[in-house]
């Protein structure tokens, strides 16, 4: 097997990689082209590159506002997910009456995709008076079953002897959770942060339903709104796209291993 030539594999993978990257390039090229974007044939390399479209975006739409909203909603979601899921995950490592019931409840909730609940979820949010508020935007995502199980698995992996040793040393239950369990479950925390970030940052449908005023819109909504009144006629739309994608991409490239692990953990468990 080893002495086989590898260049056909490289050729195949490079061409697939090119197909995967090409759409990015095409949009990036459009966003910095100085040309009229409807010239035919379209140029493959950007002619007369300039950042004007990016400046346009900055002045045409409240980008900072959308960005801030996204950051607030994601921040709330991430914080709530880490705290609530760690708590629930820890509770599930204990034995108590009704545990089977709780587990069954969680597993069956996992079968209900959020999209299948939007209408009553909207009505409930309305009844709670949370429409068009940060809390209303993030509350449904405050806890995720998959992430609870990620924490549970991680806590389960902490050796009992270690906990017993800590107890013998006279540490209280709380100190054990804070000083022993949580530091050892760091990868579960990373998974929680990444998954809840991705889900809340990219979420489109729920904000679309819950927000009323432009002041509360998050980035994906702002992008869709921009599209709806600009159509495809301006490079600014593509500049906006790049601006929206850049933070996520950078984060992904920086914490690549954690992302891949977290996302596949999220999927294999759910």
């Amino acid at each position: 097997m080893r002495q086989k030539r590898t260049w056909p594999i490289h050729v195949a993978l490079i061409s697939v990689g090119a197909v995967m990257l090409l759409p990015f390039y095409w949009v990036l090229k459009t966003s910095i082209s100085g040309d009229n974007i409807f010239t035919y044939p379209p140029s493959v390399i950007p002619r007369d590159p300039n950042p004007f479209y990016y400046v346009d975006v900055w002045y045409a739409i409240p980008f900072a506002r959308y960005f801030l909203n996204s950051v607030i909603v994601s921040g709330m979601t991430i914080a709530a997910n880490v705290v609530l899921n760690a708590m629930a995950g820890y509770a599930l490592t204990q034995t108590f009456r009704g545990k089977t019931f709780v587990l069954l409840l969680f597993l069956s909730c996992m079968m209900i995709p959020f999209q299948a609940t939007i209408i009553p979820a909207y009505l409930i949010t309305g009844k709670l008076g949370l429409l068009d508020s940060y809390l209303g935007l993030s509350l449904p995502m405050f806890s995720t079953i998959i992430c609870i199980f990620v924490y549970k698995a991680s806590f389960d992996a902490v050796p009992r002897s270690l906990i017993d040793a800590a107890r013998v040393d006279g540490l209280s239950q709380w100190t054990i959770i804070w000083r022993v369990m949580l530091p050892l479950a760091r990868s579960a925390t990373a998974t929680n942060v990444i998954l809840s970030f991705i889900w809340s940052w990219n979420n489109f449908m729920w904000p679309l339903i819950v927000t009323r005023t432009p002041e509360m819109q998050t980035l994906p909504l702002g992008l869709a709104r921009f599209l709806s009144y600009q159509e495809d006629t301006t490079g600014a739309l593509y500049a906006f796209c790049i601006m929206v994608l850049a933070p996520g991409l950078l984060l992904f490239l920086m914490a690549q291993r954690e992302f891949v692990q977290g996302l596949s953990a999220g999927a294999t468990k759910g």
Partner: protein
Amino acid sequence: MIEAAVKAKAGSPALRRSTRRAILIWAFLAPSLLIFLLYRILPLLWNVVLSFEAWSPLKPAVFIGLDNYQEMLFDDDVFWQSLWNTLGLISSAPIGIALALGLALLVNSEIRGREVYRTTIFLSYPLMTVAVAIIWRWMFDERVGLINYVVRSLHLVDTPIPFLNSFTWALPCVIVANIWQMLGFYMVIILSGLQTIPRNLYEAAGIDGANAFHRFIRITVPLLKPSLFLCFVIGMLNSVTSFDLVYVMTGGGPGRATEILITYIYKLGFNQTRFDYAAAVTVTFFILLLGITYLANRLSGGNAGAVERD
């Protein structure tokens, strides 16, 4: 609970500690349980109730039995159209998975730069779907989209194809964008499946004279079955719930050519304020999802995607 109370009254410190422990455990579970109750269980039940009623926000609810379902099944072409489109989207998942399987086999071979290839192919998965939809709208653009440019340069067609405004092409275009986004993700799952296959199986088969094709059919595919079905379940759930992609790429159009159940539910509820009827469609949608997941589980002969209960 009564038992616990009695025990607490008995006053033995050990027992009191166990009650305190139980309270702590339930206090830890309470916030999550409350959220699932509020945003999963309650909506599900409410949907079912609502689907048997005639109701709109300003009118009192009237029980109308199966009228909503009757209208949906017998008088609503849009419902059927979106149901078929949804099933079409689901059945495209295996194409993506097959592609990903090929890629995973290539990336799994011992070549230089496999990390780079893996990253490149995975890159599209964590992206914001709204932006992905806008990117692909631009790729499929009639006048200056890259795809039209390529097919015209190759003289495959003379006039540009208005992909997203065409009844034939719109749904396949959405499918292409969906596969593009999911491909790397399927690949990563299959890769982790491949890494669990012991190498010596291949060596043994090689000694027995099995060629590459036989090794693939007899060893790789059977042992990858759980990963492949996992991909299918995820791909299916992802495609039926890809509201953002359809909403931004085509808005369900042209006509209803790319309407799927989830976009139809949204439009019924929030554009036409027909919450009651939308609830009936939602219940059907949910039953469809459950049915397909169940079927996939049975076919895989195991518990794809199930959480191991200790």
